Every structure is written in C-alpha cells, then in structure tokens.
C-alpha cells in the first residue's frame, strides 16, 4: 500500500526515485524552509519598529507573499501537481481580484459624482469625536480609558493624536471641529490678573511690589499717553515679546510661547476692550 502513498507517484516525481529530487524534498530541506519562514516572520515583526510606513507595509505584505509562495511550493508541492490544478486555483484567485476591484471604488471612497455614503461619513465623525473626547478626558484626569496612568510621553502622543483627529475633522468639513475652547476673559484673569488685576485696573496682588507699577488698562490716560502710540500692533507685540521689546518695563514678560496667533489676537482685543474710550 505504501506504493500508493503519494499522489504524484504516477509522474515519476516521487521523493525517493531520484537522488536530486530526494535532496530537494527531504526532511532536512523542509527544516531549512521552516527556518527561513521563521526568519521572515522575525523580519515582518521587526519592520514596524522602524516606524516608516512604507517599510512596515513591505515587511508586512511583501514578506507575507514570499512566505506564502514558500509554503505553496515546498510544503504543498503545487509545482509537481498537474498544471490544471494551478489553473483552477488561479481562476479562483482571479475571481477574488475581480471582486476586489469591482467593489473597491465604492467602498474606499465615501463620495462620488452623484452619491454620498452618509452612513460611512457619519461613522467616521462619530468615532473620531468619541476618540477625541476620550483623549480629552485622559489628558484632563491623567488616567486613560483602561484605568492606566498617563505619563508625559503618553500624554504627548495623545495630544498629537487629538490634533491629527481635529485636522481630519476640519478636512471633512465638520462644523466647529477646529474651534478651540479659548476664553480671553478667563485667560486674562488667570494669566494677567496677578499683576494687572482681574479687571485690568493694574491692581493685581503683585502690583504694589512692582516698580514701575503694572499698567491700568481702564485708565484713559494709559491709552492717550503722548509718549507711546498704543495701537493694536503695539499691544500684540507687547503680549507676545514682552515690555522690553517695545521699550517699556521689562517686568512685563513675553507670553508668545503660551498663545497661538488666534489666541494672541483674542487677548489683544480683550485688553483693548478695557479702554473706557473704546467705541
């Protein structure tokens, strides 16, 4: 019965009827192929550690194709089967590719000339919004959704991810996605208040100890100073670069690192709004 033990006995490709073939299909050869497969696996696991997307994709799918062809050739012995076996397997594969490219344009894009896949778009917005809220909570409380503490590195990653999500949402035209909750009045009270006073009257807790005294923005004389033209640009520059930058008191620190351009603008407008002569 052992004579029938192989399906390709009839083709004269049996493992032990020719020396050359025995060498290529012997146990040692199989072990070599197995070691090669394991080495390729190690490569595909190592790939993502380089954090380069192209390399990750190559090591993931390029290597998968190589591994698959090794298994097909050396373990399944497809190459010694009758040719038509390969043909009908290839036909199956071709149907799969046909399926993929027939459907892919409709699934990969969520918008066409006369159609919009609203369900898909809504799902992306819903998922991103939920993720952003989760990040906000994690950053605020210092604990992530699994109850793990958020260290500095992780917090930086989370914030980068949140910025990325915000950018995508803005790209998708989601209303209000790019708005940062920034309130100039609150920021003024906490950041500027200790010196300039919460109401901007130059009467903060530290004001008495400072010489010269912090500016009183509610005093018309401050705005009508004959020595300095206190226009919008002057205010913006002072907040951003500090008093010394405009030839005034160096005790007024530079806050440029704390605000982005929009926030700087909002802060300047708030300060100008304290001018009792403002229209």
């Amino acid at each position, binding site marked *: *019965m*052992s004579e*029938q*033990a*192989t*399906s*390709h006995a*009839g*083709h004269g490709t*049996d*493992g*032990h009827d020719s020396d050359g073939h025995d060498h290529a299909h012997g*146990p040692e050869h*199989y072990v070599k*192929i*197995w070691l090669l*497969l*394991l080495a390729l*696996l190690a490569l*595909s*696991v190592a790939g*993502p550690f380089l954090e380069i997307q192209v390399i*990750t*994709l190559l*090591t*993931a*799918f390029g*290597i*998968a194709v190589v*591994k*698959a062809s090794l*298994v*097909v050739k050396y*373990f*399944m*012995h497809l190459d010694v*089967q*009758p040719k*038509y076996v390969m043909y*009908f*397997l290839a*036909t*199956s594969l071709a149907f*799969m590719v046909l*399926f*993929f490219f027939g*459907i*892919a344009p409709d*699934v*990969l*894009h*969520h918008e066409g000339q006369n159609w919009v896949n609203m369900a*898909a778009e809504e*799902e*992306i917005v819903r*998922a*991103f919004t939920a*993720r952003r809220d989760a990040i906000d909570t994690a950053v605020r409380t210092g604990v992530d959704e*699994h109850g793990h503490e958020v260290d500095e590195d992780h917090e930086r990653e989370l914030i980068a*991810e949140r910025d990325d999500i915000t950018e995508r949402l803005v790209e998708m035209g989601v209303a209000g996605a790019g708005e940062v909750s920034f309130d100039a009045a609150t920021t003024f009270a906490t950041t500027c208040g200790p010196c300039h006073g919460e109401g901007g009257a130059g009467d903060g807790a530290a004001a008495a100890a400072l010489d010269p005294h912090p500016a009183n923005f509610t005093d018309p004389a401050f705005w009508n100073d004959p020595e300095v033209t206190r226009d919008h640009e002057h205010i913006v520059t002072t907040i951003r670069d500090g008093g010394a930058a405009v030839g005034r008191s160096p005790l007024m620190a530079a806050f440029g690192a704390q605000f982005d351009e929009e926030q700087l603008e909002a802060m300047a407008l708030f300060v100008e709004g304290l001018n009792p002569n403002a229209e």
Partner: protein
Amino acid sequence: MEKPVATVRSAAGISTGMLSIWWLLASEIVIFGGLLGAYIMHRIGHPEWAEYASHTNTWFGTLNTVILLSSSLSAVLAHHAAEQGDGKKAAKLLYMTVGGAVGFLVVKSIEWTIEIQHGYTITANSFWSFYYVAAGIHGGHVIVGALFMLWVAGLAKKNKELQRVEMVGVYWHFVDLVWIFLFPLLYIAK
C-alpha cells in the same frame, strides 16, 4: 479490503481524493479572499480603524504564527514519512501537528479573553467584528483540520490509507497560508 474509489481512480492525472482537496481549496480561496478583501477595503476607507487596530497584541499573533508554521513543518514531514511507507512515524508527526492546532487555539482563547475583558467585543465596532469573524472562521478551519488529522493519524498508525496524510497536509498548509495573510493584516499593519 476494498479501496475507496477516491484513492484508486485517477482520471485526471492525480487521485480523485487529491483532486477534491485542490477543488476544496479553490473554493476556500474565494471565501477567505472575499473576507480579507472586504477587510482591506474598509481598513483603508475608515481612518478611525487605525486606532482600533493598534489594540491587537502583536506578540500573541507572532506566537501563533510560529506555532502554525511549525505545525506545517510536522505536517510535511508526516507526508514525507508516509511516502516512505512509515505509517507509525507519519501518525506521530500528525499528532504533533494536532498539538500545534491545540496550542494555536489555546493562545487564541487567552488572547480573546483579554480583549473581551477590555471591552473589545464583536459588537464594539466594525473593526472588531471583522477581527472576530475572520479569526473565528480561520479558527473553525483549524478545528476541522485537527479533527481530520486525528482520523487520518489513527489510520496511518495501522499503515492504512497513507495517501490521506498528504491530503490532510495540503489542507493544513492552506490553513497556515490564510494565517500568513491574516497576521500582517490584523497585527502588523497598524
């Protein structure tokens, strides 16, 4: 004893049994191909999946790949032993392959338990639905393959129907093959 017709008939150049295994695999290509193709489309079309995918555990996946590749080795060695007419050795190697299948399923169940405890269930979102369906259908194939191997090994031990060792082996290599593609899709390309 009369031989099964699938063994003795060879109208197409190979035994009918072997031919039927190849036909089976041709249909499996469409089943898994469709599933993986659909996954790839959605993975690319849904940027929010990147975050979901980042929670799969690469090390569980790697361990299972090592197990499956090794079980493929023992399957092909069993085929070699059967070719030499050594049914006992073939049976032993097939039992080792079944051991690999069991190991794979144990790792998978530990992995799934941890994921489910973290709230990543099959209904959590479409990514996890794909994850459990794809790995689940594959796991089903692992179970079926292991059962058939036990049966074939039981016969091979008595030096019976040794040609079936190659048939079940080819099926097993295909199960390995599917995992070779599932692994980068679910664990590497994050």
